[in-house]
């Protein structure tokens, strides 16, 4: 065996976890809820009562209490009478008055694997990504940050669930749907059952039925930049890339390096679409503002476009700048100077 492999063997033996290290990890797993007793596990497996169960139970108990004659009790002293009335009032209040809605508060975090949650008996979640759960059992609210979230809500159970992303607000009363969110994609809501109402940040309310989807595009210049870059990577049509870049440039937060990058992408997309005059004007305006992001790439594009639009005379100013560092530009400039090229 070579010396390298023997070294790896020795390293493998030297890095074998010690029993103390394993015990420490096991203790921390126990603190986090693993290794429950069989009794605990069976308790956790019992189904929670549904609101329908509770309502029926309360109603039945209230009726039974109403049938009990109070006169059969022996006369109470004043103090005991007040205490008895207070106790009865408390019981009636618990039975008749609606109980406070259970408050929900939980971080939903699973970047690597799919996780499932059932925060109430009417709501089931399955997700790979991150977000947070708040609100109450009857009005849960999920703020979804990134990744894929699948939601199922039992209909006709008086649950009003809202999912919010940066781009969309989804209102649900009984359905099954999926929300996928990423910076470049924005938020996509796909409905498999029932109907949901979706409000994209820059648009009005849309009802989305089963089998349909609604795309809520990015709401920031950075999001549109990410989308434009993603489209470029996927070799999407230049028109789509151009639309993303121009939409991003119109965002109020389009400034600095993000705006420069979007500007460069727009120029390249215009050139790809054959809109040479427009692309050249944009490139020269970009270079005139002193932007450094993708300067060389934009200048080379300007050279190519200028030669098409106006020949060597038009391209010369750009060639003279590039020639200092680009041998190909230098030889092109020399050819223009000699009159070898139009």
């Amino acid at each position, binding site marked *: 065996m070579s010396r390298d492999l023997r070294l790896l063997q020795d390293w493998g*033996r030297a890095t074998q*976890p010690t029993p103390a290290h394993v015990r420490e990890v096991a203790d921390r797993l126990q603190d986090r809820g693993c290794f429950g007793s069989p009794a605990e596990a069976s308790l956790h497996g019992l189904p929670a009562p549904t609101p329908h169960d509770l309502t029926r139970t309360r109603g039945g108990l209230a009726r039974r209490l109403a049938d009990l004659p109070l006169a059969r009790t022996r006369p109470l002293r004043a103090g005991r009478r007040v205490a008895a009335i207070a106790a009865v009032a408390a019981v009636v209040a618990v039975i008749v008055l609606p109980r406070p809605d259970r408050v929900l508060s939980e971080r939903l975090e699973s970047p690597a*694997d799919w996780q499932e949650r059932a925060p109430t008996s009417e709501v089931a979640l399955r997700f790979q990504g991150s977000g947070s759960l708040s609100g109450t059992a009857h009005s849960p609210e999920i703020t979804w940050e990134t990744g894929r979230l699948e939601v199922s809500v039992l209909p006709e159970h008086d649950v009003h669930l809202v999912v919010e992303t940066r781009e969309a607000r989804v209102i649900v009363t009984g359905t099954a749907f999926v929300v996928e969110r990423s910076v470049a994609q924005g938020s996509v809501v796909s409905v498999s059952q029932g109907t949901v109402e979706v409000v994209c940040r820059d648009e009005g309310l849309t009802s989305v039925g089963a089998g349909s989807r609604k795309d809520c595009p990015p709401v920031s210049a950075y999001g549109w930049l990410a989308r434009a870059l993603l489209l470029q990577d996927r070799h999407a049509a230049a028109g789509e890339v151009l639309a993303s870049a121009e939409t991003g440039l119109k965002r109020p937060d389009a400034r600095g390096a993000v705006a420069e990058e979007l500007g460069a992408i727009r120029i390249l997309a215009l050139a790809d679409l054959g809109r040479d005059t427009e692309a050249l004007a944009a490139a020269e305006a970009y270079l005139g503002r002193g932007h450094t992001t993708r300067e060389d790439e934009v200048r080379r594009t300007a050279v190519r476009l200028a030669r098409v639009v106006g020949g060597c005379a038009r391209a010369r100013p750009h060639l003279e700048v590039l020639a200092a560092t680009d041998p190909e530009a230098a030889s092109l400039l020399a050819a223009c100077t000699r009159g070898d090229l139009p």
Partner: protein
Amino acid sequence: MMDSVDPRTASLRDALSGDAAAAEHLLMAWLPEVLGWCMRLGGPKVDASDAAQDVGIVLWTRLHEIRDPDCFPAWIFQVTRRVLAAHRRRAWIRRWVGPVPNRYAASAAAPDRGDLSHRVQATLERIPTRQREALVLVYAEGRTVAETAHLLGISPNTVKSRLRLGRLAFREAAEATGLDPDWEIPAQEAAP
């Protein structure tokens, strides 16, 4: 295959049928292996204990999803791999809060062992992930090519190919990190 003679799988079928005690036994039986993978494949920026805990949580909560007991070793390795990838992605935050303390680094009495282990780890970090996995599983952990192929869900020939490329990459990386193959790493001391 590996798990046909692996005594740890004795409790696997009971655990899959819902026996909590068997599930606990299964988790404890695999924890040393999982922790070893986290220590060797996580890299210097990942806290192996944290990553191993996360794998344990996944095993504890998702064991019921396994349909084929024969696939369990490969399943738990894939879970470990994905958890480590997530920890590596989050590790950049630790640039700002300080390095991860390595409680299991060499003591002051034996500084060389820790330094050598870290050099080997730093060397392994320089080679592609798939080749690193093959080298660690076969040479550092002593698995056969067939066992490694089963764990990774690939063919034995692919494992051999990754080992071949990995050895070349390791030698090249060792020259860059100054790792001398003639150094010897002492065996780990027995735990108190």
